[in-house]
């Protein structure tokens, strides 16, 4: 599968990344080179092989639903780019 410039822009936006118009050709070419390597997967006969999501076939462990973490909201907010009144601040979304 080959990506054109429009598709590259779409993917970049889905990933919330900017690709400048001046970089688009090179980005598309690099991604297409990588994808041509990945497309080799299509030639492999995987038969009825079961998809392997976990190397040890472990299932998700469950735990009792109780508070286990101490409140570190102050420490977490101290390292945030912008906070106010106990909230993480971002540019206004709704006027």
């Amino acid at each position: 599968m080959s990506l054109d410039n429009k598709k590259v822009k779409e993917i970049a936006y889905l990933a919330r990344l900017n690709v400048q118009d001046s970089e688009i050709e090179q980005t598309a070419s690099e991604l297409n080179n990588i994808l041509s390597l990945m497309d080799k997967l299509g030639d492999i006969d995987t038969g009825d092989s079961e998809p392997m999501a976990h190397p040890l076939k472990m299932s998700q462990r469950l735990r009792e639903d109780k508070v286990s973490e101490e409140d570190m909201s102050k420490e977490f907010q101290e390292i945030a780019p912008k906070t106010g009144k106990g909230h993480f601040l971002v540019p206004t979304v709704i006027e």
Partner: protein
Amino acid sequence: MHNLTIAEQIKGLKNKDFSSQELTQHYLNRIHDSKLNAFISVTDDIALSQAKEADKKIASNESSILTGIPYAHKDIFCTQGVKTSAGSKMLDSFISPYDATVTKKLNHENMVMLGKTNMDEFAMGSSNENSYFGPVQNPWDVSKVPGGSSGGSAAAVAARISPFASGTDTGGSIRQPASLCGITGLKPTYGRISRYGMIAYASSLDQAGPMTRTAEDAAIVLNAMAGFDPNDSTSANKSVPDYTQGLTNNLDGLKIGLPTEYFSEGLDSGVEKVVMQSIKEYELMGAKIQEVSLPNSVHAIPAYYIVAPCECSSNLSRFDGVRYGYRCEDPKDLNDLYLRSRSEGFGEEVKRRIMIGTYALSAGYYDAYYLKAQKVRQLISEDFKKAFKKVDVIMGPVSPTAAFDLGSVKDPVSMYLADIYTLSVNLAGLPGMSIPAGFSNQLPVGLQIIGNHWSEELLLNVAHQFQIRTDWHNHSPADC
């Protein structure tokens, strides 16, 4: 003191030949004299205060085996109050508010953290050239790469500026730099060491491990790092043996498998020669050598470079400029904040992998890429299962070549292809090691030893017996 192994330093501290403070200061001096760029942060004050505390513990007989031993921590492990950057501009200002479980465990031993080591950004790379903080130089030849992504850790141990360094291995990031720098590196079975507080790249593959000069040192350190952690849902609830106990067994009758696919086209002849000489050494120790086949190992590259970018695109979505890390100047709206913070904060290779992963997971492509890659992953894992019915361990090269020139590999695909011998081990969740096996054109070459799940004890002994009979692990580069 820097030529001593950890096992020897433990004796030295116990016999009062030197104090932890003297040992620590000695290493800090060596770090400050080094020009390799192996460290992103050097934590002199923390190190000296931890060393002082360790000396008190030793004096009052409250010490454990590793008390007072200095180490370097890969900058992917969260360290409370200390910058944890993962080699990225995105986290250049990130002071971790908590400790990773591995950090806690090493602190619990009263080990001494010298600093945080340089690495490829978010562990994505095989040369350490993808670090925001600049590349690390290989101590054997400063014009060469140290390998990656744990390049700073490998260079630090090889250059004797730290006796042990932590590493992480998602597709070879402990074994390949260990090979290129001539040290011992162990990637344990997936789930052996907690991933809590270890900044995630590809969650179904990431695994931490020790990087040391000798297998004996790796065993001592693995004892401290391994174990179940309720904070990591993928951590295995399995008891941890004393890995030093198995280091005495002889290898008479050990069955070693050589995968035909690992000795084919693309393997440098100098590397092949060193690997085959090491195999001969094992034969002299009574091991039986036989060929095995891992027919799907050639598919490891496309499978890995789908699985890992898909998981990274999901994991790295957390870096949004809102709660921590880099935020762009004057965002005009929320979307602009996301777009510019991520575009300015991530480096080129990270952005490439996020985009590949985003594409492979996007509507209509999931079956063709991620699901297909997981099926191939199963085939790769089954190859190993079949092989381990016939042999105890598998041996081969770690990397197709010795260390290459800094700046010489510009094309991402060429860089990916060099991971051919290490990726399968991560896809199958197996333990693997690299040990110093010789030199090719004055550059170190590692021997890879792969074992079945949970066979770390066997691997460490197989490595240790080799190191009893050879001295490749004792070779050290000139100070640089």
